[in-house]
Structures are given as structure tokens and as C-alpha cells.
């Protein structure tokens, strides 16, 4: 047992409001500069949709992540080290600017500086790269809220396994819905970006598992851009190096939550330490597709288990980190409560960001109705809506059931469980059982036997249901983010520097930047 600690994340999709505050928080601090304009370390996608960059989930196009090597093991799908040298100068699987977007701005100053003329000035769009007028055809959030459904949502790669009728139904009044998928770097246990880097510039930090690209070492080969199946590594065209989400380590080290999590106004995000057994990475990542989720969860260790604690200490995991792991909200959601799932486990990177799947409104039905006769009676002034149908969404029970929910479960399973419908369904049923239980506790107008049955089926006691409810609804900031102490004093000491002297000296001298490649 090789016990290590990993800061992990849970995003509760049922609570996500799709506001993109997280994206802006991140951009303001980290990527609001030349060469980084198009980088969205944190972005939010509408599902169904094609996301950013377009169709990133389709590895037939991008060749990201890992694949089985035919010998019971796995290999990088597109940019493995063995192949990389020949690909350095020509990488056919890179997203192009059209898959991202050409960053644009406007000639705002024209509004203030335009000479007197015959027509009102307007600030026309221009390229941030060339400064020339441009026609905006794509952006980092282009298919937000089902924008351009025909061209985007209907081409969501996750629809591939659905029948045409099922696909069509997802966009009809009675079955339509959408939800949001916020994404950051998954800080994977089996990170393809790390494995792909020819320069060895990418690494996981030992104390917290944060994956970083060393800006001194990176040579801009961009293998990580291809290898990351989530497309969360970006090439900075100004510095000539790649950059990615750093999980706001400077904030974590100061005890702050990452900016995207701090700013999450839907309060959907949780962060905490999980201890895992690094000896089992290879085995878990190589498992049969049907077992991927289960194997990954198996790796996550009980932080109260004395053996785990002993092994952790032996590996140098700090007591304070073990304590954090014991209070970790993510451990509860992911392991103890079985409520959260990784995104696209079939990419085999063992992502450490997990998602609680969302509930959706119940289906409705639409019946033909010829209302011409009635319509003729409407007051002469009154507007008539010439629809030949009536929409019905009446249900007998107070809430709908999971089986009545909009969207086939297969769609969710394609996202979160490599196709395992049961894994998604059991989690949604849990959420619904908790709602019923809380209804009983707060109103008492639901049949108690029905509630008990639902709890039992979901494998929940009332007590556990209340605990989940607390963390879902009432949690305070410190419940949602349990940040392990960074022990910066120890890190500084390991540099053979006197911590006391650092106290007095830090910040003097010039701020340290990294040079542009070739500079």
C-alpha cells in the first residue's frame, strides 16, 4: 500500500446554475493576458452540447487519454512518448483555432474618438490577434443554453449511442431539458498530460496531487494538449509554453479555496483531501470498461482505518493532512455515500473531480387538439396562439420518479459511468429518496411507507439521508472546503533556506517571472 494524498473535488450538478462566475473568477486572476486570451482553465458547458473546444469528448478526433494496449495494459491514445518524437513538429490531433475561437474585441475607442459625422459610430468587432475587423463565428461558450441547437447540441458526442428517435425526443417540448457541466483540470491520478510530456515538465505535486506544468522546463511541444482528453492544457502563443489549471495552489497554500470554488454562487463545489493507494493506479486504469468506476473508487482509502493512517505516516503524509482527509466532504460524497461519479472514466486518467448527477424535470406528453372552434370565440382584441396541441405534465405523486425524468439515462451514463446506467440511476434515486425523506420530516404529507421503501432501495438510513441533506443544502463555507495545511515552512526549509530569514526577505528583489521560450 502506497498511501498518498490528493486534493479532490466534487461538483453537485443538480445545484449548478450555469452562471459562469467560476470561469470569470479564474480568468481574472490567471488568464487575462497576452497569449492566454482563449484559455478557460475553468469553463462551463451546456449539456447536451459540444463544449469547449468543440467536441472535445470525441477522441476519434482528438486522440486524448489512454487506450487498452491489447496486452492487458494501457497506452496513450494519441501522443504517447514512444510516438512523440516523430510528432513533435506535426501533431495532427491538435485542436485548431477554429475548434477554440479567435479571440475578439471591439474598437471601443471609436465611440469616444469618432469625428463628427452623418451616422452614429459603433464599436465593430476586431481580432485580438491581428487587430483587423472580424466576423465572429465561435466563442468559448458558443452553445450556451442550447444556443445553435441544430449545429451543436444535436451533435453532442454522447448522443451517438442513442437511437434517432431518442435523440430527436431530447429536443422536443415534452422531453427537452439541459443541464450544466462545469469543468476544470481533473488533477488525474493517471494524468495523460504528465505521461505525454517529452520535456518532463509536467508533474503531480507530492503533497496534494496538483498537476502543474513547470514554466521553466516546458518547451512548448504541446503533447499535453493532445494527451489530455479533457482538453484542459492550453498552449500560450505568446510565451511559447503550455499552461493549465493550477488548482489555485497559491490560494490553497494560504488556506483559501480555489477562485472558481470560492466564487461558486450556486454553492455546488466541494474540495477536500482523499487518501489513495498509488500501487493500484495501473490496475485501476487498466480495468475493463465496465469496472472502471468501481476500481477507481476502490483505490480511495478510509482515512479512519489505522492501517491506512500508519501507511500514510510512513509515506510522510502530515498528521494535519490525515485530519483533513477525515473531515473531507469529497470523501463522503464520492466514497462513503456513493453519490458522485468521474467524468468520462473511459478516458482512463482516473480524474479526481467527481460529479453528482443532476435531477431533471419529469417528462410530459403532448396531445393533438383541434381548438379552432374555441379559438374563434376569443375576444376580438385577444391574441390567439395557433397551436394544435395540448401539453400535459400532470403527475399523481408529488415528485416525479427517476424513470419519468427527461433524457434517457443512457445519456448521463455516457458522461459519468462509461455507459453503466445503473451507476447513474442509483445515485439519482438516492437524491430523490432524500427529497422524499425531507418532505416527510418537514411537511409529513407523503406516505411514510413509500419513503421508507425509497430510502431502503437507495441504501440510506434516515440519519445518513439527513447528513447528505446537510452537506447538500445547509453546508457552510468551511464544510464545503476542507483545505489541508500546506506547511510552507517545511517546503522552504527543504530549500536549505532559513525560514526566519525568509520571513524578513520574502518579496524583496524583483518579482520572478519565467522567460518566453527562445527569449
Amino acid at each position, binding site marked *: 500500500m502506497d498511501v498518498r494524498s490528493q486534493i479532490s473535488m466534487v461538483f453537485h450538478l443538480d445545484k449548478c446554475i450555469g452562471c459562469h462566475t467560476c470561469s470569470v473568477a479564474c480568468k481574472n486572476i490567471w488568464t487575462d493576458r497576452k497569449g492566454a486570451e482563449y484559455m478557460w482553465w475553468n469553463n462551463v458547458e451546456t449539456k447536451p452540447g459540444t463544449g469547449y473546444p468543440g467536441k472535445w469528448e470525441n477522441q476519434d478526433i482528438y486522440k486524448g487519454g489512454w487506450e487498452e494496449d491489447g496486452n492487458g495494459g494501457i497506452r496513450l491514445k494519441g501522443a504517447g512518448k514512444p510516438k512523440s518524437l516523430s510528432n513533435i513538429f506535426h501533431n495532427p490531433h491538435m485542436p485548431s483555432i477554429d475548434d477554440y475561437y479567435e479571440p475578439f474585441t471591439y474598437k471601443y475607442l471609436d465611440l469616444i474618438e469618432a469625428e463628427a459625422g452623418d451616422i452614429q459610430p*459603433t464599436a465593430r468587432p476586431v481580432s485580438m490577434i491581428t487587430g483587423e475587423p472580424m466576423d465572429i463565428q465561435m466563442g468559448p461558450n458558443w452553445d450556451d443554453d442550447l444556443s445553435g441547437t441544430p449545429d451543436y447540441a444535436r451533435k453532442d458526442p454522447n448522443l451517438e449511442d442513442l437511437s434517432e428517435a431518442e435523440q430527436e425526443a431530447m429536443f422536443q417540448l415534452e422531453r427537452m431539458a439541459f443541464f450544466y457541466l462545469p469543468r476544470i483540470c481533473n488533477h488525474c491520478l493517471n494524468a495523460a498530460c504528465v505521461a505525454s510530456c517529452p520535456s518532463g515538465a509536467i508533474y503531480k505535486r507530492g503533497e496534494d496531487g496538483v498537476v502543474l506544468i513547470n514554466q521553466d522546463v516546458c518547451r512548448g511541444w504541446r503533447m499535453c494538449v493532445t494527451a489530455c482528453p479533457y482538453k484542459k492544457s492550453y498552449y500560450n502563443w505568446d510565451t511559447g509554453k503550455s499552461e493549465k489549471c493550477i488548482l489555485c495552489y497559491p490560494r490553497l497554500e494560504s488556506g483559501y479555496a480555489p477562485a472558481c470554488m470560492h466564487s461558486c454562487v450556486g454553492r455546488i463545489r466541494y474540495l477536500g483531501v482523499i487518501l489513495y493507494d498509488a500501487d493500484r493506479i495501473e490496475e485501476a486504469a487498466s480495468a475493463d470498461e465496465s469496472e472502471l468506476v468501481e476500481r477507481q473508487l476502490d483505490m480511495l482509502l478510509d482515512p479512519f482505518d489505522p492501517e491506512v493512517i500508519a501507511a500514510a505516516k510512513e509515506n510522510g503524509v502530515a498528521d494535519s493532512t490525515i485530519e483533513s482527509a477525515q473531515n473531507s466532504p469529497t470523501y463522503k460524497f464520492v466514497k462513503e455515500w456513493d453519490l458522485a461519479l468521474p467524468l468520462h472514466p473511459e478516458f482512463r486518467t482516473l480524474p479526481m473531480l467527481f460529479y453528482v448527477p*443532476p435531477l431533471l424535470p419529469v417528462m410530459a406528453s403532448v396531445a393533438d387538439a383541434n381548438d379552432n372552434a374555441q379559438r374563434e370565440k376569443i375576444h376580438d382584441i385577444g391574441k390567439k396562439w395557433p397551436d394544435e396541441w*395540448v401539453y400535459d405534465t400532470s*403527475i399523481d405523486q408529488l415528485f416525479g420518479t427517476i424513470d419519468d425524468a427527461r433524457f434517457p439515462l443512457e445519456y448521463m451514463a455516457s458522461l459519468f459511468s462509461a455507459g453503466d446506467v445503473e451507476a447513474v440511476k442509483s445515485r439519482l434515486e438516492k437524491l430523490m429518496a432524500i427529497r422524499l425523506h425531507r418532505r416527510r420530516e418537514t*411537511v409529513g404529507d407523503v406516505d411514510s411507507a413509500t419513503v421508507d421503501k425509497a430510502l431502503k432501495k437507495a441504501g440510506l438510513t434516515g440519519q445518513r439521508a439527513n447528513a447528505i441533506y446537510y452537506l447538500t443544502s445547509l453546508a*457552510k463555507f468551511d464544510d464545503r472546503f476542507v483545505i489541508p495545511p500546506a506547511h510552507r515552512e517545511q517546503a522552504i526549509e527543504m530549500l536549505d533556506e532559513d525560514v526566519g530569514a525568509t520571513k524578513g526577505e520574502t518579496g524583496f528583489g524583483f518579482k520572478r517571472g519565467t522567460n518566453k521560450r527562445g527569449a
Partner: protein
Amino acid sequence: MGWIKDIISPQTRKWEEFYRNRFQHDRVVRSTHGVNCTGGCSWQIHVKDGIVTWETQQLDYPLLEDSLPPYEPRGCQRGMSYSWYLYSPLRIKYPLVRGALIDAYRAKKRETGDPMAAWKALQDDEEARRDYQKARGKGGFRRTTWEEVLEIMAVANISTAEEYGPDRVVGFSPIPAMSMLSYAAGSRFLQLFGGLNLSFYDWYCDLPTAFPEIWGEQTDVCESADWYNSKMIADMGANLNMTRTPDCHFFAEARHNGTKTVVFAPDFSQVSKFADQWVPLHAGSDGAYWMAVTHVILNEFHHKKKTPYFLDYVKQYTDSPHLVKLDKRDDGSLHPGRLLRASELSDYSDVDEGDWKFVNIDAESGEFVVPRGSSGCRWDDEDGNWSLEMRDSVSGEDYDPVLTLLERSDQVEEVEFTDFGLDNTASRGVPVMEVETEDGTELVTTIYDLIMAQYGVDRGLKGDYPSGYDDKDAAYTPAWQEIFTGVSGDTVLQFARQWGNTAESTGGKCMIIIGAGINHWYHANLMYRAGAMALMLTGCVGKNGGGLNHYVGQEKLAPVDAWGAVAFGKDWQSAVRLQQAPLWHYINTCQYRYDGHFKRYNTVPDNEMTQKHTADLIYKSVRMGNMPFFPQFDVNTLDLCEEAEVHGAQTNEEIEDYVLEKLKRKKVDYAVGDPEAESNFPRVWYIWRGNAVMGSMKGHEYCLKHYLGTHHNTIAGDSEDRTEDVVWRDEAPEGKMDLLVNLNFRMDSSALYCDIVLPAASWYEKADLNSTDLHSFIHPLSAAIPPVWESKTDWNIFRELAKATSEAAEEYFPGVKKDIVAGPISHDSSGEISQPHVKDWYEGECEAIPGETMHKLTVVERDYTKLYDKFITLGDRICDSGLGAHGTHYEIEDVFDEMVESNHFPVDQRNGKSLPSIEDAEQAANAILKLSTLTNSGLTKRAYEGIEKKTGQDLSDLSESGAHEGHLTYADLQAQPRRYNTSPVWSGLMNDGRAYAAYTQNVERLIPWRTLTGRQHFYLDHEMYLAFGENLPTYKPSPKPRAYGDLRKTLENDEARILNCLTPHGKWHIHSTYMENHRMLTLSRGCEPVWLSEPDAEAMDIQDNDWVEVHNDHGVYAARCTVSSRIPKGVCIVYHVPERTVSIPKSQVRDGERAGGHNSFTRIHLKPNFLAGGYGQFTYHFNYWGPIAPNRDTHVVIHKMTHVEF
């Protein structure tokens, strides 16, 4: 291959400093955003190297009750991107003036050698004036100095006051709550000057007129934490993710606590993802759905089950047991009429204010009783009778009111009820009884019985009752509503039953969250009333977790009692000029000329009151004191007072009498009666904190044409329907305004069209206060950095303007002047029981008595040389008048003296008096916090004592457990968010961390609503409501396109696909703010697109991202198109407000003229029944009552652009 190794080595990781350096910062300051989003979020502004680098949310909100989720974090994607503006290319860094104006002014100044003479000469030079007007909006800005622009503004102010009167100087700034002192700066200046402030809440159509109608309240709603207390939430017209972004989590979290959620929206709006059920009602048909819901609730829970909780609730808290007279028409038909008054009964005929006291029947004795709590009990001389205790106001005896006459009277008469939807009249049996009144025998029934009949609840009485829920022809059955909503009757049935059961099980924890998606329709009040009925009938109002919670605009200015005095100069003078904006713009932008008769689009019964043009009815309402209108008269009010004095008037009263006589003899006339006369133009317009020319300007193109006199895109012509009383001139003037001034931090659409643009400090550069109804804290705005470049705070700009104007007055207009203010009769004064009938003195229908049958007349002294002195000090008039709001009143003299004596408040010596200084905004903030019941517990107690006296209820505990110790200061608010006190200014109880919910004070502490009866109103018996068919809750369909008149010219020779254009609040901006923010444009589509359904797009051969033009007679908007499956057929959405400054091409349908914004295709339509006045809750107050300016019923056509040119 080797598996991934973690790296621990610090040497290898030394580069990590790279990102650490970026994160380090120097200073964090608490501020917020003064934007009308209703969020009111507390932010950390990060400063590094003296530059604001980013912002993130504060997390230190104090917790409310243990059972509620916390408020942190609050703040959205828009707020998070604000810092972009600070140093953006849109930033106004220096004073700007349009070249055409400044060249002409400088030339005149060279000629005359004098600023005042130069300004007058410029205005007298018709050609020069037209030239700079035509240049508006077309570039040519020049950088200038503060000195020069202050000089121009000062002489324009003084010249206007001297020549036309001060009430030709106008100001518009919206929603003070978002930055109270920035608003107050301009309003204080204008009111001290004698100018006018335009209202905003009604103008934005955010005022839910149903609130005054039902509750006598502008708006009062629960804070967002209280959503969590609800067990069934119906969300309609409020897209919570998009528009209540920081609050939406309470909605999501409530679901996990077992709350049922149903979302009503025609499109799959963003909040629909949180729904248990999504109900896509046809746009604007929500009222029909709720009428049917109430039909089921009445039938099943009231009639059949007689749910005790519901019946007890409506007896005590609603007007339902009140008796109503039935009017017999000439054809013999009976119609619901006016409420029976105590004065009409011989036993009560001598009761004080008996016209304003009403009648119930006591169940036990069968005798009449006159309930406590009515407006008569409020304004009579007796104390202790104004409460909701069920006691007779005369005898003091307990009573149990009779709800229905069903088992008390054998007499059943058929009464006529109109279904405006299917254009039906139903004659339905109603139990009645005969009453002997002073005027003879009258038939009466209860409001409850009328409601049962109106809703078609079959109680076995004769007449045209529905045969069952599936009776399609009978209003308001579940089957009937299908034709309007497109939603099945079964959906209604199931919903109504779950609603009733939940309310019964929880004691009223069902709520409606409602917003602009409903309130922006022409018949919004009826839709709101329809929903409110379902709430009141199930006891869900005045309960935590219940209520009609309307969130449209950040109207809740918590410390309004003290703020009002500072903002409107009431510390110096007794009368103000506060203008109802919708009717003002309707008249002054000449939009009434294009409107036609309201009967073309409003289904109203045909009777004497529904005959005239809306403009004529406005004119009448102004004469009667029901609505304000400034400019008041066709003469200068300063000259008028001087004339009175020349004619021997010595006192203010004598001047008032002189003017009254002139009005009566029609020797002075009202400006509103002849709005196209040059003498009646508004002349100088100050715009700050808002986008008055474009963002909020319904009929924007008419504004460009008639106010500004520049290019425009309207093709509409005068309507054939002419006014009768308002003078109709053949030519409508273009370019009424002499000068437009804009204070702004960015070049928005309004700034682009103004003559002078002043650089204003941004929200991270000034001190101010902010409150909202979404939470119960007061937040500060603070200066993280000083104002950048040459910008100044709004407070300081108006202070400088006051100084410059005073200095100009010394030279050109010295001395004390008298001014006479004609103000409307106001709500929360005894004037609200002054007009029992609609009688117009002007037509000789009654005597002209100011403050009763007509507007008030008040003489005010103006000394323009003292404007500055008054601006910067707090006047001691409030020591005599006291302070108050919403009917409260308290004395503050001792606190005022304390401020003068205390070392903590700066003092200014002016004109021989020591007064508290409010020279800067922080001082003004501290004065307000010291003087408000919301923030000073000593005053809270005092205000409650006043209410105790009138109500006879013991309320002393409320100021103890619900208030802070002592008073709050600005520095306290900067340290941590502070909850304000429970106060009688508002209606919610907040003691011990309880979430604020409206009307809990009324329900639990028996304080009446400020309405006619003191109860919540099912029934509205004002004569205009009877005449307009809105006395009972009813359904009127949205008008069809041709009736509304948007497309007369557009479709003259053309058949096109007509779409209902909806303009709901969007995701990437708050109105126009943030819309052109680079961050938001990047995350959206680089413009504000037009959303179209897949079938409509296909039919018009439009692809996603094509350029299209949206147009009608009024104007045109051009943008890209977004095709989406979540949009229903027949509608298109343009989220408001696009700026016309960014990425707007030239229009092809308007010959290459620049296309406009979303208000380019709107025009004002008003509902005349909102002009009622002097009658209980139907009495004017600023932003409280009057016609609202809807935009949702607008229809457009769309053309694909073949050529895009900027």
C-alpha cells in the same frame, strides 16, 4: 511504462513562485455594484500596485436562523467582470462635450463676452440650436475642462429657471437603493433647485401594480433565504439562475429539503432545469392558468372541504366578508358595485369618516358590524381602532364575520359576470340580502360570494355555472384555460390540489416567485392578482415560506425614512417635484400621438369612463391631483408667484389662493394640456446612474426624434384617434431639449447621445450605501482606489454643480424667489380618503379644493445663491417635521442636536447656524444611518410607539429583539455586513435571525395593510375599476399584433411572419451594464443575439449566427440570430438591454441608418385605470402608483440581412 511519480523536491519546484507572485496583492476593500440587479452583493476588491486587479465575493455574512443555508457567497459572473470597466477603452476619463455645441457656445461667448448671454443667444438662434441637436449621437466629442462644463450647466440651469421656470429642469436616475447617495446627490440638487425627478420603477414596468391594488404597498417581498422555508414554489416570469444568480441556491437547496418546484415559462428557461415540472404556458397567458387554479381551490378546499385554516384566514385578513352593493342597470341586469359604507346605514350614519368604513355581518348576532382597520379608522381622530382585531370599531365588541350569505338569506339573484377572454357574459345566481340605506333599499352580497360566482363555483345556485371542470366555455374552468395556455386541464387540477394540500399541511408555505416575465405585460396587474388569489385563499400571505415574491428591480431602499429627507431636500423645504415617468414620457415624447385609443387593445366595457384618449385622462388625473405633471403650468411658476405678490398677496397662503383662483378661472393652464407648446418643453436633462435615452426608454426612437431632434428610425405616423382636451397641434415638435448631461463611467448608449458627458467615479472608487429586498443587510460601496483620471463621485459632481449654479445666481439671478408646487394627493396621508367618487372640478363637477378634489398647492422659497449652502448641510426643518415613511412618523430633534454636538459628526457653520455637514458622501451616509429606524434602535422604538398608539397593539418587543444596539455607522458596514432592524417602515419580522417575509407584521401583530379596508383586497371598488371591468380578479388576453399597433406601416404592403418579441432579463448583463463588457461578450455570442425557435428559423430560411433585423413601425434592431430548441414557436427573444454602441450594423430596412436597440421596437401603452387617485391604496406616491410602461406585448417581423456593414 513507469507510472506517474509525484514530485516533492522544492528545488525543482522553485518556479512555482511564478503563479504565487501573480496572486499576491496589496489591499482588499469591501464594495459592491451599484447596478439595478437586486443582488446587493458584498465584494472584496483586490488592489495590487495601486491598480484594481480582480474582485471576488465576501464570505462574512452573519448567519440567520440555524435551519437556513448561509448567504455566502453572493455575486455573479457580471459582478465578477466589473473591474474590466475601470481601465477599459470605454472609460470616461475627462469631461467631454460635443463639438457642435461647444463651438457654437464658444462663438456666442466670444460675441457676447458673457456665459449667460452666450447661452441665451445660442438658444435664440434657431439654426444653431438645430445644428447641435442634429449632431447628437454622431461622434465629435471633445475633451474639455470641468470649469467649462460647469459654467455651461450653471447658466443653462439659471437661464431655464428665469425664462421658463425651474420645473423645466429634469433629472433621471433609477433605483436609488443600489447606490443611495449617488442618487441622492442629483435628486437633492434638483429638488433644492425646483426641478423634477422622474420615477423609474413604474417606468421600467417593474412596479407590480397589483401590490398597491391588493396590499397598498409598492412592493414588499421575502428575502431570498425565505424561499428555503417554502414547501411548494411556483416560479413564473422569474428566471432565477439568470436574474437572481446569487440567490438561486436557496431554490436549489430547498428542493433537497423536500420542496416541490414548478416552473412556468414559455421557453425552457434556465431555471426550468430545477423544476419538478416545467409548464410551458403560451407567452403571457399565465393569468388564465391561475384563474383556473383558483377555480379548483375554491371548489375543493373552500366550497366542498371548507378547510378551516383557509376560511379563518380569509375572514380576518382579506376583504372577503365585506358587503358589496349590486347595481341595477337600465336593462335590469345586476352588476357588482361599490362597497357598502357605514355612512349608508342609519345606525352608523354619524360615525366619523363613515364613507371610509365598511360593513360586515356578525355570524352570531346577524347584525351589521363596522370592522376596525379600515382607512376611515386610520385617518379618523380616534386612536386604537386601526388594527386587524375582529372587533367592531364603534362598539369594540368581538365579532365573527359572515363569509357567505348562502345559509343566511333565501334570496338569490342573478348577477352578470364578464369573461373578457372568450368574450362571454354569464348570469350567475348569488345569495343576496336587502339593506335599508340612507338612499333606500339596496341589494348586497359579500365579496366572498361574488368571488365564488365570478370563478364559477357551482354551489347549487341558479344561472350559468360551469357543468364541470371540463366545461370549455365556462370561465374559469381547467378546460377553459387550455385555449389560452396550451396546457392541459389535468395539469391545472393536479397542481391546484398539491398547492392546497401543501398550504393546509404547512400553514401557508406555498409561494410564487414572480418577475418581469409577467410584470412587463400590458395586463400584468391581472396576472398578478390571479396568482395572488391562489395565495390569499390558501392562507399563504404574511407567512414565512409563502407570499407573492416579486423581484424586478432593486427597489427596496431599506433606510428610506431618513434617506428620503436627504435625497429630496426635505430637510430644507416642504414640497417636492417627483414625476410619474411613464405618463410624462408618453406625453412629452409625443408617443400619445401615435397611440390611438386604448380601447383598440384593451378589452373594456363601454361606458362613460372608457371614452376618452389616454392623454385626456392623464390631463384629468393631473387636475384632480391623482397624478403629478411637471412642468406644471403654461407659465413660469416663479413669475406666477411674483405676479401674486404684485397683486397684493403677502403670505404664502395668499399666493396659493391667488393661483387657485387663476386656475379656477382658467387664466393659467396646465402644461400637460398643451404639451407641444414651446413654453411647455422640458429643457435641461440630467441623466446619471442609468441609461435613460436607450436602456429604459420605451419608444426610444420617439425620444431621439422629439426630445433630441436627431436621426431616428421610426416610420410611424400620427394616429387617427385624436385627443379632445389635450391641444392637438398639427406638427409635433422635434428637439425639445436644450441640453442633455450624462454622468457616466463608460460610454454607453445614453452618453453617446448626450451633449455633455461627465467622468463619474466607478463603484470601486466611492463611498455609498446599497440595500435590496433579496437580503436584509446594508452594504457599503467603498473607494478601493481614488476616482481615476479626472472622474469625481456623483455626490461631488452635483455638489460642484450646486456651487457653480449658486455662483451664477449671484451674478444673474440673485434674491429670494417664491415658487409654487402643484403636487398630487399622496398615499399614507389623509388625502387617501378624499375622493370617494371621480369628480372633476375643472368640468364643474365639484368645487376645487386643493388637497381634496384637486392637487395640492404649496409655496416654497428658492434662493439660488444658497443652493450650495443647503446642499452641503443637513437642514433643521426635520427637527420640526420629524421623519417617517410608509405611514410611520417619529421625532428626531434630540438626535439631530446630538449630531451637532457630537465630535463624531462634522458640523458646518452656515448663515449663522451650526448644522451637521454632509459635504461628502460618507458624512451623508452616517447621517442617514444615525437617523433611520432601520439602523438606530432608539428611533425604531419611537416609531413603533406611534404605531402602537394608532393600532392599540403592544409592539414594544419588536424594537428589542429585532434591533441592533445603538446605531450603525458606515465603518461598521465596511467591517462586516449588518442586518438592519425590524421596523414599522417595512412589514416583515426579522427578530432572532428569522428570515424576512412580507406582511408577517400584519398577520402576527395585526397591523392593517394600508388599503381602503385595511385588509388584503380581492375586490377593487374604485369607480374606474368598475368601469374598466377590473373590480374582480379576471383574465384579459394579451392584445393581438394588429390591435396593438406596432405593425401598421410595416405590414402595409407585406405579409410576414409576425413574432411576439420578448425582452426578458439576460444572462450576460444587468440591463445594459456589462452588456458590452469584453468578458461577457466573449462568453456569449459577441453581441446580443435574437433567439429564434428551430421551426420559425427554418420557415424564414435563417441559420444559426446569421445576421437579422428585428423591426416594426417604431424602429429596428440588428444582430445575429441564435437558433435554439428551447425557444417556442411564435416568439423571439432579445434579452434586454443591448447597447447600440457595440457591434450594431447599418440597417437595410432603414436605408443604411444605424440600427438601434431593443427599445427601438417598443412604444408606450398605458392602462388608464392606474390613473385613479385620492382613494385608499389608489393614491399617488412616487414609484408606487400610476400607469406602468409595458413592453412584452410587442410584435415584430424579422428579416435576414444580405449585407452587413458597420
